C-alpha cells in the first residue's frame, strides 16, 4: 500500500480553475493521510512543472503520483514519463480528469463542480494507494510477415518488407498474380498499363529470396497471436508440371480441345474461357492453370500435352509469422437488375466491363455485334446511395470514367461521350483529365439524388432522359449506343479470411483500422495490418501508399525479435476457476483457452492476445478473474471514495 502520494491539481490556465476551486481541492486532499504533498499548478504539462514533479518524487521519496488535469488521452504518457524519469514505476501514476469530466461539463455550477472534483481526485488517490508496480511484458516474435493477396498493394508491400529484412509469405487465391490492376490496360495520369506495372513487380518478387509466393492458396485457419501466428494455408495445384515450358502454339491447341466453357471473370463475363486458362499471354506465373472447380478431367488435353498432371494433390501448409498484412482488395459493385437499366435494357454495362471491352476491341468498338459511337456514363452507381447501403464515395470512379472516355476517343473514331454525373470529383492532378475531356467536347450533365435519369430502350440503343438543372431543369433526351454504369468499389464478397482473423469490419463493410488518421494501417487485432482497397475505396496510388505504410508498420513491430505488450491484462486465479467457459465465450479476441492444472481443467489467458478489455471479469461466476491495473480492490476503494 502506498502512503507517500504526491497530488498535483492543474488549473489548465483557467479552463479548470474558472469553475473548480483548486485551492479547496488541494486542502481537501491534504486531509488524506496517504497524501504527503499536494500542490496546485497553472499548467501541469508545462516543462517546469514536470521538472518540479520529478524533483519532488526524488527528494520526498514519493511512492505514488496523482495528477488531476485533463483527459488521460491527452497526457497519460506525459506524466508516466515524468514518473519514469524520477525513478517511479509508471503504473503507480494515476491521472484524474477534472477538465472534460468536470469543469467543462459543469461550468454552470462551480460549487458542485468543486465538490465533484474533490471526490474524483480522492478516488484517484485511493487507486494510487492500491496501485502495484508493473512491468511491460515482452514476447518473442518471428521476423516473418504473411501477406494475403498478391494485387498491387500486396506485391509492393512484400518487396518492401523483404528489402527491410523480413521473410514474406505472399499468398494469392487465384493462380495468377496482379489482382485487379492486371485487368486494367492504360492507367490514369501515368499512362503505363496495369500489366506492365505488375510484370515489373513480379520480376522483383521472383528475384528476391526473402519472398515466397503461393498461388492458388487460401488461408484456412489461424492460431497463435502477434509475434507467433500459426497460419494454415490450403494450396490448390495448377495440374501442370512446374517445369512446363509454355509453347503458345501448343497451348492454343489445348485450348481448342478443352470442352468446358465458363464465364470469364477476368473479362467480367464479356466472354467465355476454357477450364484450362491464362488470362493474357504475359500473365504471371507463366504456366497456365486448370480450374479445379470446373474441369471434368475428361483428359482431352493430356493427349496433346503430357505436362498436364492430374496426379497433383491439394496441399496444406503450416506457416509461422510474426505479423499478417491483409491486402485482399475489392469487388466492383454489381448493380441490381433494373438499376439504371442493368440487365433490363440492352447495351448497359459496367465501367469495369467497358475497360475490358476497350482492350478486347482493337480497331472498332463493337458491343453485341453493333458499332459503338455514342457512349453514356452514369456516375455513382453503387456509391453515395442515400437510400442504399453504400453511403461512401468510391473515390476512383469519376477519374476512371473520364479517363476511359478519353482513351476511347483516342483509340476509335467518331466517339461522343456523355457524362451523367453527380458532381465531378477528379481531385488533385486528376482534375487535368476532367479539363481535357471537357475541352475535347465530352458533355457533362449533372443529376441529383431526387432527379435520377431514366433509362429506356429506343430500338437502337439505350435512351437516357435527364433533367439538366443547368438549363433550368429542361428535360434532355440522349440517344446512345452504349450506356456504362460507373460502378464503385465494394468489399470482397468472399470474407472467409476476416472470419478467421476476426478483423473488425466497419459500417461500410470494409476492414476497419484503429484510427483513420493516427493508426491508419493497424487493426485492433495486434499484428494484423490492412492496406489497399480492402480497407476503403482507393486508387492504385493510394493503395500502394497504404501498402508501404503497412509494410513499415509491420516490420517495425516484429523485426526486433521481441514485442513489448501493455501489462494491463486479465489474470485468472486457477485455484478458483471451475471452468464454466463463460469467459471463453465472451472474449472478443480469442485470448482465453482451457489448460490442465493440478489435475483439473481451468481457463488461462494468452497474454499476447489479451487486450485488457475486461469483458471476461463480470461474467465469471467464481469471480476468479482480475484485470491487472484495475483490480477489485482498486476499483472498490475508488467507489468508496466517490460515495
Amino acid at each position, binding site marked *: 500500500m502506498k502512503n507517500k502520494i504526491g497530488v498535483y491539481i492543474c488549473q489548465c490556465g483557467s479552463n479548470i480553475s474558472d469553475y473548480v476551486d483548486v485551492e479547496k481541492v488541494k486542502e481537501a486532499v491534504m486531509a488524506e493521510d496517504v497524501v504527503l504533498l499536494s500542490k496546485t499548478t497553472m499548467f501541469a504539462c508545462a516543462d517546469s512543472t514536470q521538472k518540479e514533479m520529478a524533483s519532488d518524487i526524488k527528494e520526498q521519496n514519493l511512492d505514488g503520483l496523482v495528477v488531476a488535469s485533463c483527459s488521460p488521452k491527452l497526457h497519460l504518457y506525459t506524466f508516466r514519463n515524468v514518473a519514469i524519469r524520477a525513478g517511479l514505476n509508471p503504473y503507480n501514476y494515476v491521472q484524474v480528469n477534472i477538465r472534460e469530466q468536470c469543469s467543462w461539463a459543469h461550468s454552470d455550477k462551480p460549487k458542485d463542480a468543486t465538490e465533484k472534483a474533490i471526490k474524483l481526485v480522492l478516488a484517484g488517490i485511493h487507486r494510487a494507494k492500491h496501485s502495484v508496480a508493473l512491468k511491460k511484458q515482452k514476447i518473442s516474435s518471428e521476423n516473418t510477415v504473411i501477406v494475403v493477396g498478391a494485387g498491387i498493394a500486396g506485391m509492393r508491400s512484400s518487396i518492401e518488407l523483404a528489402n527491410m529484412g523480413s521473410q514474406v509469405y505472399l499468398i494469392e487465391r487465384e493462380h495468377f498474380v496482379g489482382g485487379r490492376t492486371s485487368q486494367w490496360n492504360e492507367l490514369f495520369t501515368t499512362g503505363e498499363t496495369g500489366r506492365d506495372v505488375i510484370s515489373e513487380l513480379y520480376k522483383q518478387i521472383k528475384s528476391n529470396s526473402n519472398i515466397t509466393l503461393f498461388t492458388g492458396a487460401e488461408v484456412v485457419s489461424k492460431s497463435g497471436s502477434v509475434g507467433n501466428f500459426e497460419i494454415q494455408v490450403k494450396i490448390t495445384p495448377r495440374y501442370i508440371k512446374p517445369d512446363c515450358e509454355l509453347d503458345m502454339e501448343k497451348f492454343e491447341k489445348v485450348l481448342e480441345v478443352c470442352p468446358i466453357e465458363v464465364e470469364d471473370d477476368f473479362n467480367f463475363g464479356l466472354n467465355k474461357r476454357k477450364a484450362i486458362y491464362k488470362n493474357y499471354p504475359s500473365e504471371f506465373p507463366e504456366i497456365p492453370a486448370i480450374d479445379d472447380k470446373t474441369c471434368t478431367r475428361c483428359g482431352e488435353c493430356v493427349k496433346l500435352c503430357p505436362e498436364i498432371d492430374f496426379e497433383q494433390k491439394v496441399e496444406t501448409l503450416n506457416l509461422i509469422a510474426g505479423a499478417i498484412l491483409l491486402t485482399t482488395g475489392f469487388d466492383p459493385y454489381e448493380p441490381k437488375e433494373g438499376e439504371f437499366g442493368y440487365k433490363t435494357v440492352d447495351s448497359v454495362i459496367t465501367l469495369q466491363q467497358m475497360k475490358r471491352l476497350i482492350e478486347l476491341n482493337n480497331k472498332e468498338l463493337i458491343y453485341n455485334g453493333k458499332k459503338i459511337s455514342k457512349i453514356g456514363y452514369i456516375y455513382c452507381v453503387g456509391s453515395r446511395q442515400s437510400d442504399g447501403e453504400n453511403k461512401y464515395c468510391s473515390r476512383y470512379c469519376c477519374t476512371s470514367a473520364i479517363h476511359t472516355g478519353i482513351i476511347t476517343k483516342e483509340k476509335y473514331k467518331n466517339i*461522343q461521350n*456523355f457524362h451523367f454525373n453527380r458532381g*465531378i470529383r477528379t481531385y488533385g492532378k486528376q482534375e487535368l483529365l*476532367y*479539363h481535357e475531356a*471537357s*475541352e*475535347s*467536347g*465530352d*458533355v*457533362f*450533365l449533372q443529376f441529383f439524388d431526387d432527379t435520377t435519369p431514366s433509362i429506356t430502350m429506343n430500338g437502337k440503343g439505350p435512351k437516357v*432522359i435527364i433533367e*439538366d438543372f*443547368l*438549363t433550368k431543369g*429542361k*428535360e*434532355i*433526351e*440522349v*440517344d446512345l449506343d452504349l450506356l456504362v454504369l460507373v460502378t464503385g468499389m465494394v468489399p470482397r464478397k468472399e470474407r472467409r479470411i476476416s472470419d478467421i482473423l476476426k478483423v473488425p469490419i466497419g459500417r461500410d463493410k470494409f476492414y476497419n483500422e484503429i484510427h483513420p488518421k493516427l493508426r491508419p494501417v493497424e487493426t485492433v487485432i495486434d499484428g494484423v495490418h490492412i492496406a489497399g482497397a480492402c480497407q476503403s475505396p482507393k486508387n492504385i496510388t493510394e493503395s500502394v501508399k497504404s501498402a508501404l505504410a503497412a509494410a513499415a508498420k509491420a516490420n517495425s513491430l516484429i523485426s526486433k525479435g521481441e514485442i513489448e505488450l501493455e501489462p494491463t491484462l486479465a489474470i485468472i486465479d486457477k485455484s478458483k476457476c471451475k471452468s464454466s467457459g463463460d469467459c471463453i465465450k465472451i472474449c472478443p479476441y480469442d485470448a482465453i483457452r482451457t489448460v490442465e492444472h493440478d489435475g483439473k481443467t481451468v481457463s488461462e489467458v494468452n497474454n499476447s492476445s489479451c487486450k485488457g478489455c475486461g469483458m471476461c471479469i463480470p461474467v465469471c461466476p467464481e469471480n476468479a478473474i482480475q484485470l491487472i491495473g484495475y483490480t477489485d480492490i482498486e476499483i472498490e476503494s475508488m467507489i468508496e471514495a466517490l460515495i
Partner: protein
Amino acid sequence: MANINPDFAIELKKYGSVNFNACYNCGTCTAVCSLSTEEDSFPREMVRYSVLGLEDEIQASLKPWLCYYCGECSESCPRTANPGELMMALRRYLTAKYDWTGLSGLLYKSLPMSIIAFIVTAIAVIYYSFYESFNVEKIMHFGHLFEMISIAAVFSIILVPNIIRMWWMTVLKQKAKVPFTAYFKSIWDLIVHMFTQKRARDCDDNEFRWLEHLVLVIGYLSLLFTTVVLDWFGTDNLFIIILGYIESAIVFIVTVDFVSSRIKQKKEIAKFSQPSDWFFVIWLFLLGFTAFVVRVFIDLNLIETNLWMYLIHLTVLVQWALLIVPFGKWTHFLYRSFAMYFDKLLKEPVKA
C-alpha cells in the same frame, strides 16, 4: 423535351467559337457581366445551350444581341472557355439563320467563298469599265446611281425580309402575346438604340469604345447621306465638300484604331478575329479613305487622268454594298437594335 446534339459545337466552331466546351458552369461570366440581369441572364445560359446543342432555344433567344462584348467574361473565365467569343459566334450564327438567302452562312463559314465573292465583284467592276471604255463621266454617274439602287435593293430584298424572319423566330414562334399598341410604343427605343447603342455604355470601362463607335456610326451615316443625297463627288458647294472631307476622315481615322487593336490583340475583345471581322473594319477604312482620296483627286483635277483611283473606290463600294452590308457584320447594327425592340415587346405587360 429536347434532343441533345453535341455536333452543334463543330458547326459553331466554323462561326468562330473558341473552346467553350471547357465550361464547367461556374457562372463567373454571368456574375461579372454588367449587362446580365436576373431576367436576362447570360452568357452562361447560352454556353450551356451551345454545349448541349439546343438550336431551337438559341434561335429563339435574343440574348446574344444583348451582349456588347466588353470581354470581361472571357477575362475572368477560370477555364478559358471564352464565353464572350461564344456570344460573338452566336451572333454570326443567328445572322446566318435570319438570312433567307443562306449566303451569310456561306460567307461566314468559308473564307475561300468570301474571297471568291470579293474577286467576282471586283472583276464585274473592271468589266463594266471596259464596257464603258473608261469614260469617267459615265462611270462616276453609274457609281452614284449604284449607291441609290443598291441601298434600296439590299433593304427591300435582303434586310427587311431577314428582320421579319428574326421577328418570326424570336417573337411569333414563341407564341408570346404582344399587345398591338406595344409595337408603336416601343418604336422610339428602336431608333435610340440604333443610333446611339446606349446600352453599351453600361459595360464596364467602355466609355471610350462607345464614343468611338458613336462617332464612327454618325460619320458613316452622314457620309452616306452626303454622297448619296448631296452628291458629294458631283457638287460645287464648298460646305458640302468640306463636310464630306470631315466625314470620310472620321471614318478612316477611327477604323485605323479598330484595325490596330485587332492587330495588337491586347484587349480581350480583339483577341480573336474572324475573316468577317477583318473584312468589316478594313473595308470600312478603305471606303472612307478612297472616298477622301477620290474627292482630293477631283479637287486637284486629277481624276480625269487617274480614273483608276475612282475604280478602286467603286470596287470597294460595290463589295461593301453587296457583300458586307447584306451578309456580313454590318447587319449586326440592325439586328441588335431590333433585338432590343423585340425584347421590349416581349416584356410589355399583357392586359387581362
